[in-house]
C-alpha cells in the first residue's frame, strides 16, 4: 500500500521537478524501489542511529541502499536505544533514528527532534543459552534458580524492560547475576559460556547462529517489541534521510528485516 | 689482622695494592682523589668484588676469586663509617646505633640498651632521640662511629671521616676521633685525601696514587723523605729531581745546578727543600751563595702568618716568607726575583 502512495506522489511530482530542473540533471539509474527512475539521484551522507539489536539487519540495509544510490553513504551508530535517545536530544548529528521501543522514540518526538515516526518491525523475546545448554535450561522458570548464572539487560534499556515484563507474565522472580548495559554484551557473555541463560531478542539468537541455542518463550508470556523509525528534524540531508526511511519500510527493506528474524510491524 | 691483596679493574682504571693492618694499628690510605682509595675500602667491605687477589680477616677468607669464595657484606665482621655518615634519616640516633644489633638478632629493648651505653661513651646521651638531620656535623660523626662500633667488629673502616665537616669543626673533631679510635682495639683502616687527618690519626701511612702504592711508612718517615711529588706537596716540601754530577752537585731535570752539603747517596737524586729555607732578593744577592737562581713570582698565597710564594724558573719551587718581607720586597705576580738556598738546607736522597 505504501508503494502505491509513493508511486502516486512520484507521478505527481515528476512534472514539477522537471520544470524546476529545466533539463539540468541526468536522470539517475536509481532503482530504489518506490522511487521512479527519472527522479534526480540522491546525493549525501546520513548518520543512522539504530538500536543494538538492529546491527546486522541495518548494516545490510545500509549496504543495499548505498549500492542503489551511488552518491550516498550511510554511517551507523548502534547502541542501546536509551543511550541513542540521549545523544539525539543532546544534539548529536543524527539523521535517522530507529529505536527498539516506542517510548524512546516518543521522547525524541517530545523533544522536538522528529515528527511522524513509523513502526517498521516487531521483535519478540527468546531465551538464549550457550551451545550445548550444559545447564539444562528449559524455560523462564529456570531464571529463578540461584545456582545458575543468569543475565538480563539492564532495566533502563528496552530489552531489559521487556525481559522483566515477560518474567512477570510468567510469575518468575529471577535470580539475576548481571544486568548488562546492552543486549549485544549480554549475548556475548551467553555465547562465551560465561552465563547459563539470558533473555534477548529472537533476532539476536538468529544472528548468533550456532554459537547459541534458543528456548522459546510461550506466546502468553512473551512480549512484543515494536520498532519505530523516523527521520530527524535536524537532518543535514533530509531527502536522503527520508529516502532511507522509505527504503526500510519498502518491500525490499522488509524482506531484509524478515531474513534476520524480525516480524512485520 | 687484615691481609688485603687487591686487584680491581674499573674500565680503564686499575687498582693494584696490598694492605695489611694489624690489630691495634691505625692505617691510613692517603692519596689524591681518584687514586682508588675508596674503591679499596669498598672492596674490603664487600660492597664490590675483587677481580684478583685475596682478602683475609683474622684468618677467615672474605674474598678470593681464584677459590670462588665471596663472603657477602652482611656477614663480614666489619664496621664502616661512611663519608656522609649515612645515618638512617627516619630513625633516631639511638635506633641508628641499635640497628646493627637488631640486624644480628638482638631484641629491641636489649639493642637499645646497648646503644644507649655507646651513646653515653660518646657523650651523646641527650641526643638519643634526635633525628640525624638535627645533629651537628661532629655529633653525626660520633653517632656514625658508635653505630659502626656497636656490633663489636673485628675491623673498623672509615671513609674520609672528617670530609663532611667545616674547617673549624674538623680541628676539634679530629682530636676527638683520635681519642675514640684509641678505645677500639681491633684493626682500623681509614681512607683520606687530607694529609693532616692521616698524620694525626694514623700509626702508619699507605700512599696510593693512580691505583698503586707509592710509599708506606710512619708519618714521620714519610714526611721526612717523601717519595713522590704528591707527597712532598702534601707535606709542604719542595721536591726536585735531578742527576748527580759530582759528589756535591746535582743537575736538575730543568738544567739548573744545585750544590748540597752532604755527599750525594747515588746517581738519581731527589732533593727536598723546605719552603722556609728559600730566601728571596730583589737584587743579585751579596756574597756568593752556592745556590742562587733567577725566578719569576707566579703566585702569592697567605697561609696563616706566612705567605707562600710560588716561583717559576730553572728551580720551580715554593718559598715561605713573612708578610713583612713580601712588603719589603714589593712582591707581586710577574716580578722577577733572585732566590737562594744554603747548601746545608738541601736534603738529598736516592730516588
Amino acid at each position, binding site marked *: 500500500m505504501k508503494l502505491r502512495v509513493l508511486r502516486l506522489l512520484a507521478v505527481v511530482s515528476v512534472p514539477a521537478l522537471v520544470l524546476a530542473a529545466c533539463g539540468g540533471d541526468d536522470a539517475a539509474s536509481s532503482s530504489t524501489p518506490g522511487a521512479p527512475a527519472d527522479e534526480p539521484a540522491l546525493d549525501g551522507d546520513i548518520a543512522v542511529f539504530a538500536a543494538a539489536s538492529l546491527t546486522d539487519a541495518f548494516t545490510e540495509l545500509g549496504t543495499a541502499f548505498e549500492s542503489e544510490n551511488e552518491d550516498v553513504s550511510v554511517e551507523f551508530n548502534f547502541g542501546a536505544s536509551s*543511550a541513542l535517545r540521549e545523544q539525539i536530544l543532546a544534539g548529536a548529528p543524527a539523521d535517522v533514528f530507529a529505536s527498539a521501543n516506542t517510548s524512546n522514540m516518543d521522547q525524541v518526538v517530545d523533544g522536538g527532534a522528529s515528527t511522524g515516526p513509523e513502526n517498521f518491525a516487531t521483535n519478540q523475546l527468546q531465551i538464549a543459552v550457550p551451545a550445548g545448554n550444559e545447564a539444562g535450561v528449559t524455560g523462564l522458570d529456570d531464571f529463578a534458580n540461584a545456582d545458575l548464572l543468569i543475565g538480563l539487560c539492564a532495566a533502563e534499556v528496552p530489552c531489559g524492560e521487556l525481559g522483566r515484563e515477560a518474567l512477570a507474565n510468567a510469575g518468575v522472580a529471577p535470580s539475576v547475576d548481571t544486568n548488562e548495559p546492552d543486549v549485544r554484551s549480554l549475548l556475548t557473555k551467553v555465547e562465551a*559460556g560465561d552465563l547459563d541463560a539470558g533473555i534477548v531478542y529472537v533476532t539476536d539468537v538468529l544472528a548468533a547462529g550456532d554459537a547459541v541455542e534458543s528456548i522459546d518463550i510461550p506466546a502468553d508470556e512473551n512480549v512484543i517489541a515494536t520498532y519505530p523509525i523516523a527521520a530527524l528534524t535536524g537532518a543535514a540531508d533530509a531527502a536522503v534521510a527520508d529516502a532511507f526511511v522509505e527504503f526500510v519500510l519498502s518491500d525490499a527493506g522488509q524482506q531484509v528485516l524478515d531474513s534476520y528474524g524480525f516480524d512485520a510491524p | 689482622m687484615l691481609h688485603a691483596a687487591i686487584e680491581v679493574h674499573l674500565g680503564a682504571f686499575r687498582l693494584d695494592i696490598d694492605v695489611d693492618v694489624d690489630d691495634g694499628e691505625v692505617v691510613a690510605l692517603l692519596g689524591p682523589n681518584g687514586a682508588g682509595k675508596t674503591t679499596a675500602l669498598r672492596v674490603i667491605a664487600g660492597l664490590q668484588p675483587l677481580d684478583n687477589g685475596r682478602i683475609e680477616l683474622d684468618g677467615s677468607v672474605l674474598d678470593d676469586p681464584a677459590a670462588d669464595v665471596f663472603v657477602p657484606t652482611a656477614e663480614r665482621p666489619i664496621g664502616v663509617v*661512611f663519608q656522609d655518615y649515612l645515618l638512617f634519616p627516619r630513625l633516631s640516633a639511638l635506633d641508628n646505633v641499635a640497628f646493627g644489633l637488631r*640486624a644480628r638478632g638482638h631484641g629491641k629493648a636489649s639493642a637499645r640498651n646497648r646503644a644507649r651505653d655507646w651513646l653515653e661513651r660518646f657523650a651523646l646521651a641527650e641526643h638519643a632521640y634526635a633525628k640525624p638531620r638535627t645533629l651537628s656535623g661532629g655529633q653525626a660523626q660520633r653517632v656514625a662511629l658508635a653505630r659502626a662500633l656497636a*656490633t663489636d667488629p673485628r675491623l673498623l673502616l672509615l671513609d674520609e671521616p672528617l670530609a663532611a665537616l667545616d674547617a673549624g669543626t674538623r680541628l676539634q673533631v679530629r682530636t676527638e676521633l683520635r681519642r675514640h679510635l684509641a678505645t677500639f682495639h681491633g684493626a682500623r683502616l681509614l681512607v683520606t685525601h687530607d694529609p693532616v687527618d692521616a698524620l694525626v690519626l694514623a700509626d702508619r701511612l699507605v700512599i696510593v696514587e693512580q691505583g698503586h702504592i707509592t710509599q708506606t711508612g710512619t708519618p714521620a718517615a714519610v714526611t721526612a723523605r717523601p717519595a713522590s711529588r704528591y707527597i712532598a706537596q702534601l707535606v709542604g716540601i719542595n721536591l726536585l729531581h735531578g742527576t748527580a754530577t759530582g759528589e756535591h752537585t746535582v743537575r736538575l731535570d730543568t738544567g739548573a745546578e744545585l750544590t748540597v752539603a752532604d755527599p750525594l747517596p747515588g746517581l738519581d737524586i731527589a732533593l727536598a727543600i723546605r719552603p722556609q729555607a728559600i730566601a728571596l732578593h730583589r737584587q743579585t744577592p751579596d756574597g756568593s751563595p752556592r745556590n742562587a737562581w733567577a725566578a719569576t713570582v707566579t703566585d702569592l698565597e697567605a697561609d696563616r702568618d706566612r705567605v707562600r710564594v710560588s716561583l717559576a724558573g730553572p728551580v720551580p719551587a715554593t718559598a715561605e716568607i713573612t708578610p713583612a718581607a713580601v712588603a719589603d720586597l714589593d712582591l707581586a705576580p710577574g716580578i722577577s726575583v733572585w732566590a737562594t738556598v744554603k747548601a746545608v738546607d738541601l736534603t738529598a736522597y736516592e730516588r
Partner: protein
Amino acid sequence: MNRRRPGARRAKQQRAPWLVLPLAAAAVAYVAVPFVALLQRAPWSNLSDLVGRPVVIDALRLSMTTALAATGIALLLGIPLAWVLARTRFPGRSAARALVILPMVLPPVVGGAALLFAFGRRGLLGGPVYDSTGFLLPFSMWGVVAANTFVAMPFLVLTVESGLRAADPRYEDAAATLGASRSMIFRRITVPHAAPSIIAGAVLCWARALGEFGATVTFAGNLQGRTQTMPLAVFLALESDRDAAIALSLVLIAVSLAVLLPLRDRWLSV
C-alpha cells in the same frame, strides 16, 4: 619604615616565566569548566533525596571497598615488582616492564574481555578452577576487585619504580655493613625511603580503580550491591534518570576530593 607583606619578597623570587602562567591557567580551566557545568546542572532541590537512595549507597559502598581492596593488592604485588624492575637486571626486563604497563594503554573493555578469557567460567585459568572448586570471579565483588587491580596496578608500579630509582642506594650499603639481611634492608630501609613514591602511587592507583568502568562491566558484570560500582550506576542512570546520574557523579567527586585534598605536600616529597 616600609613594611612589606612577608610573602611578597618570597613571591618575587618565584616568579614564573611569562608563558608558564597562562598555560597553567588554561590547564586548570580546561579541567574546571566541566565540573562547573556539572554543578550548574545539579538537581540541588532534591539532592538529598537522590543521594539517599539504596542504589547510590550500594554503589558508593562497593566502589570504596573495591578500590581500597584493589589498592591493597596492588601494593602487595606492585612494590616487589617495582623493586625488581628498578634494582635488578635480567634478560627481558624491558619486555616485563612493557607488559606491566600494557593495561594502561589497552582500552579497559579490551582488558575486561581478556580477563574473561583468562578467568571466566571457560577461561584459561578460570575454567579449571571453576570445574574443581566452583569458585568464579565474574559476577562477584572479587571480580570487580580483579578488574580494578588489572587496570590500576600499573600506575603504582611505575610510580614506585621511579621512586626507587631515585633513591640513594648507599643507605642500603650502610645497612649491609651493619649486618642487615636483604629482607631487613628491604623492609627497614628501601620501603620507608620509597614512602613518598609509594603514597603517590597508591593514590593514583586508588583513583584509577575508583573510576574504572569498562573492564569492570565487561568482566564482573553489573548488579546492584554486588558489582554495580559508581561509574556503572552513573552510566546507566544517564539514560533513564539524568538527575540521579548527576547526583551520583557529585557524590563520587565529593568522596574523591575528601581523599585527595588532605594529601600533604610533604608526604609526597622525598
